[in-house]
C-alpha cells in the first residue's frame, strides 16, 4: 500500500496494538497530527507540556507493562521532552517517543524550531533514529518498539523530518526484525544457575535483594514463590516495591539511604546477597567498601553491564529474571528453609529494635500518617504515583503495597514534576484502579498545568499534596548537614491550592485534621474528578532512618525513641 510517512506512523502504532498515546502538536509534526485527526483506532491525550506527555507515557507503560508512546514536535517540543526521556532511560521504562524535525533541506541551517534532536537524545535513550527516507519508516518503527521492550527496556527516540512524513512510499509492516548486532541474552546459563543455587544451599545468612528488573520482567509472582519455597528473607529496592506483598513475613522492607534499620542491617550481616534485577545503585549501597562486606554475591540481570559494575559478582547470571527464577524454582529442593530460622529471627530482632515508624507528637498532621491512612482506606484498590522528595520516601516506606506495577515513581533520575502526569498515564492504563499521586508543595508546581489534561480527559487523578511549606528533602539536608541554613527552600509563599484546582475545573480540599482528611479522600473518590487534597503537615519532619550520603548502611541516623504513654 502506497501511503505517506505520516500515515505510516499511524499504521505502525495500530499494528503495535497501541490504544493510547500522549502528545502535543506543533509545526514539524503537523502531517502526523492531521492523520491522527482522521483515525479512530487509538486515543490521543493532549497534555499541556511535552515533558508531561513523556511522563504520562512512562506512567502508562509502568502500570500496563506495555510500550508507552509520546508524540511531539521539533525544537522546543523535543527539548521539553528530554527530561522524560532521561527519566525513562534511568528507570528502564519502554517508550517510543516520536518527534517532528524540520524538513531535510533545512537540517543544519539553524532553521526555525530546529535542534539536533538525535544528538541530544543519544545519551539519554536506549537507541535513537533520524529517519531520512520514508522507505525506512516501517523498519525503524518496528525496530523502535522491539528495542524499547526487549532486553533491558528503555526509551527509543524516532526523529522524523517534516518532508519525510509527507513522502509517499510503499508500506509493509509485516517484516522480520533482523538486528544482527542486538540479541539480548534472555536465558541464564544453566550451569551458573546451579552453582548459584549450591551457594545458596551452603549459605547461613542469605538475603534476597529484589530490584526493579523483576517488575520489568513480570516475574514478581515467580519471585514470591521462590522466596516462600526457600524461606530466605528479602529486601526490596525502591524500584521493586510491590514485588512482595507488604504483609509477607519474609519481606523485611526497603533498604538503602531511607531503608529500614532491619533491611540495612540484614544487608550488612548477610553472607550471600542474591541480587535479582537490582543494580547496586549508590542510594542503595551507601559506602561501597562497607556494603555487604562479608558476603558473596549472586547477581542476576538482563544487562551484562550492570553486573560487576559497582559490586563484584561471584555468580554473575545474565538473563531475563523470569526465566532464571523459574530455573531456580526447579532446583529449590536443594534448599532447606529451616536452616535459616535463626537468621530470620535475628532480622526480626532488628525490626523490633528499630521498627519503621513515626511519632504523632505535633499539632499538625504527620505526613507519614497520611500515607498510612490512604493505605488503610484504599490499599490494593489504588495505584500509587509520586513526585520526588520527602513525600516520595515516606510513600515508599509506609504504603502497604500488595502487587507489582502498583508503585510508579521516578527512582533513578529523581524528577520533580513526574508524579501528576505519570498518574494521568496510570489512570489511562488502569481505569479500574484509583490513581493517587502523593506529591509535595514543591513538586506539584512543576507540572500543575496537567490539571487541564486531567479535566479534559476525565482522568480523576487524586493528588495528595503533603504541604510543609518547604522544599522538604533539601531542607532536611540543610538542617542536618548545612547547620540549618535553609537556603531557598522555604516555600512560605504559595498559591491557594484549592483555588488552583478549581480554576481548572478540578476540585480542591484543604485539610488540617484526620477527620477532614478522611472526609476529603472519601469525597474525592466519589466525585470522580481530578482533585488536589492539600494536607497541612508538620513542617520540620525528617525522613528517617537515614544513611548520610557516602556513609555505611549500618551507620544510620535513627528516629529518636520516645517513651510510650
Amino acid at each position, binding site marked *: 500500500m502506497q501511503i505517506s510517512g505520516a500515515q505510516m506512523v499511524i499504521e505502525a502504532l495500530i499494528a503495535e496494538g497501541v490504544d493510547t498515546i500522549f502528545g502535543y502538536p506543533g509545526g514539524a509534526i503537523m502531517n502526523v497530527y492531521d492523520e491522527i485527526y482522521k483515525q479512530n483506532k487509538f486515543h490521543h491525550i493532549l497534555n499541556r507540556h511535552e515533558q508531561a506527555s513523556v511522563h504520562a507515557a512512562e506512567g502508562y507503560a509502568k502500570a500496563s507493562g506495555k510500550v508507552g508512546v509520546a508524540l511531539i514536535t521539533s525544537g522546543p517540543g523535543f527539548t521539553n521532552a528530554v527530561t522524560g526521556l532521561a527519566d525513562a532511560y534511568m528507570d528502564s521504562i519502554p517508550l517510543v517517543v516520536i518527534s517532528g524535525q524540520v524538513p531535510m533541506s533545512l537540517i543544519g541551517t539553524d532553521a526555525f524550531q530546529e535542534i539536533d534532536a538525535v544528538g541530544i537524545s543519544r*545519551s539519554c535513550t536506549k537507541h535513537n533514529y533520524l529517519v531520512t527516507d520514508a522507505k525506512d519508516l516501517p523498519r525503524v518503527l518496528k525496530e523502535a518498539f522491539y528495542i524499547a521492550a526487549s532486553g533491558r527496556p528503555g526509551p527509543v527516540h524516532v526523529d522524523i523530518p517534516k518532508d519525510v512524513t509527507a513522502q509517499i512510499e510503499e508500506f509493509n509492516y509485516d517484516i522480520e526484525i533482523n538486528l544482527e548486532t542486538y540479541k539480548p541474552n534472555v536465558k541464564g546459563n544453566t550451569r551458573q544457575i546451579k552453582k548459584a543455587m549450591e551457594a545458596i544451599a551452603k549459605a547461613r545468612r542469605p538475603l534476597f535483594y529484589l530490584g526493579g528488573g523483576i517488575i520489568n520482567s513480570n516475574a514478581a509472582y515467580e519471585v514470591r514463590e521462590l522466596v516462600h519455597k526457600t524461606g530466605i528473607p528479602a529486601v526490596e529496592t525502591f524500584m521493586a516495591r510491590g514485588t512482595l506483598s507488604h504483609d509477607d513475613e519474609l519481606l523485611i522492607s526497603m533498604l538503602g539511604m531511607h531503608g529500614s534499620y532491619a533491611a540495612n542491617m540484614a544487608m550488612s550481616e548477610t553472607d550471600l546477597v542474591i541480587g535479582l534485577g537490582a543494580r547496586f545503585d549508590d542510594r542503595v549501597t551507601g559506602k561501597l567498601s562497607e556494603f555487604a562486606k562479608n558476603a558473596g554475591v549472586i547477581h542476576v540481570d538482563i544487562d551484562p553491564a550492570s553486573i560487576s559494575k559497582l559490586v563484584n559478582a561471584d555468580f554473575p547470571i545474565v538473563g531475563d529474571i523470569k526465566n532464571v527464577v523459574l530455573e531456580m524454582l526447579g532446583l529449590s529442593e536443594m534448599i532447606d528453609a529451616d536452616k535459616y530460622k535463626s537468621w530470620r529471627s535475628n532480622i526480626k530482632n532488628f525490626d523490633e529494635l528499630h521498627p519503621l515508624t513515626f511519632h504523632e507528637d505535633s499539632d499538625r498532621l504527620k505526613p507519614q500518617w497520611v500515607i498510612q491512612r490512604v493505605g488503610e482506606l484504599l490499599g490494593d484498590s489504588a495505584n500509587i504515583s509520586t513526585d520526588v522528595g520527602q513525600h516520595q520516601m515516606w510513600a515508599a516506606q509506609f504504603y502497604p503495597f500488595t502487587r507489582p506495577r502498583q508503585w510508579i515513581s521516578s527512582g533513578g533520575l529523581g524528577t520533580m514534576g513526574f508524579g501528576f502526569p505519570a498518574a494521568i498515564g496510570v489512570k489511562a492504563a488502569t481505569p479500574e484502579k484509583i490513581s493517587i499521586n502523593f506529591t509535595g508543595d514543591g513538586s506539584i508546581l512543576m507540572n500543575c498545568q496537567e490539571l487541564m489534561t486531567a479535566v479534559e480527559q476525565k482522568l480523576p487523578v487524586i493528588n495528595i499534596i503533603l504541604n510543609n511549606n518547604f522544599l522538604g528533602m533539601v531542607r532536611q539536608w540543610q538542617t542536618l548537614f548545612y547547620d540549618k541554613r535553609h537556603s531557598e527552600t522555604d516555600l512560605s509563599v504559595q498559591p491557594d491550592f484549592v483555588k488552583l484546582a478549581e480554576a481548572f475545573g478540578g476540585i480542591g480540599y484543604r485539610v488540617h485534621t484526620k477527620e477532614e482528611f478522611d472526609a476529603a479522600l472519601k469525597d474525592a473518590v466519589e466525585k470522580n474528578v481530578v482533585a488536589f487534597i492539600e494536607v497541612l503537615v508538620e513542617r520540620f519532619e525528617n525522613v528517617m532512618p537515614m544513611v548520610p550520603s557516602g556513609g555505611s548502611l549500618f551507620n544510620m541516623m535513627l528516629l529518636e525513641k520516645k517513651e510510650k504513654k
Partner: protein
Amino acid sequence: MIAENSERRVISVIVVNEASVLSRITDLFSGRGYNITSLTVAPIPESRYSRLTIVTSGSVRVIEQITKQLHKLIPVLRVYEHADLVEKEMALIKFPLSENLSDISTLCAAYNGKIVNVGENVIIAMVADEPVRIENFLRVIKKYNPKEIVRSGAVALER
C-alpha cells in the same frame, strides 16, 4: 577503595556503517568519563561494517565496563579487548632540508619507513611500526629539529 592500577588497553570495535555511529561511541566515552588516547576508524572492505581501534586506559574494572557499555550500543557487532593483537601506527614527520638527510633516511629505514616527499625547504618522512617503537623513534629524531609530527593512532588486528 583500593587504588586500582590504570593500564593502556587497545579495544577493537566492529560497528554497522551508519549515520552517527561514531558519535555514539565517543559520546559513551565522554559521558562516562573514560579516556581516549587514540581512535581510528575505517570501513571493512566488502561488508556493511567498520572497524574502530580505540587506545584507552583505565583499571581492569573500568576497561570491563567500557567493553560492556560498548557492546550495549545497538549498532555494535563485536568488541575485542585484551586480545592477542598485532598493532601498528604510522607517523609523518616534516624535517628542514638542511638536516642530515642520510641520518634521517637510515633511522626511518630502521622503523619501516622512508623519505616520502621532498620540497624546496622541507622533507617529509614516514615510519610505520608498533606504537611503542614510534614513541622511541620520535624521541630519537628530536635532534634533527622536526617541524611537524602527525601520528595516525594505532590500528590493530587479532592474531
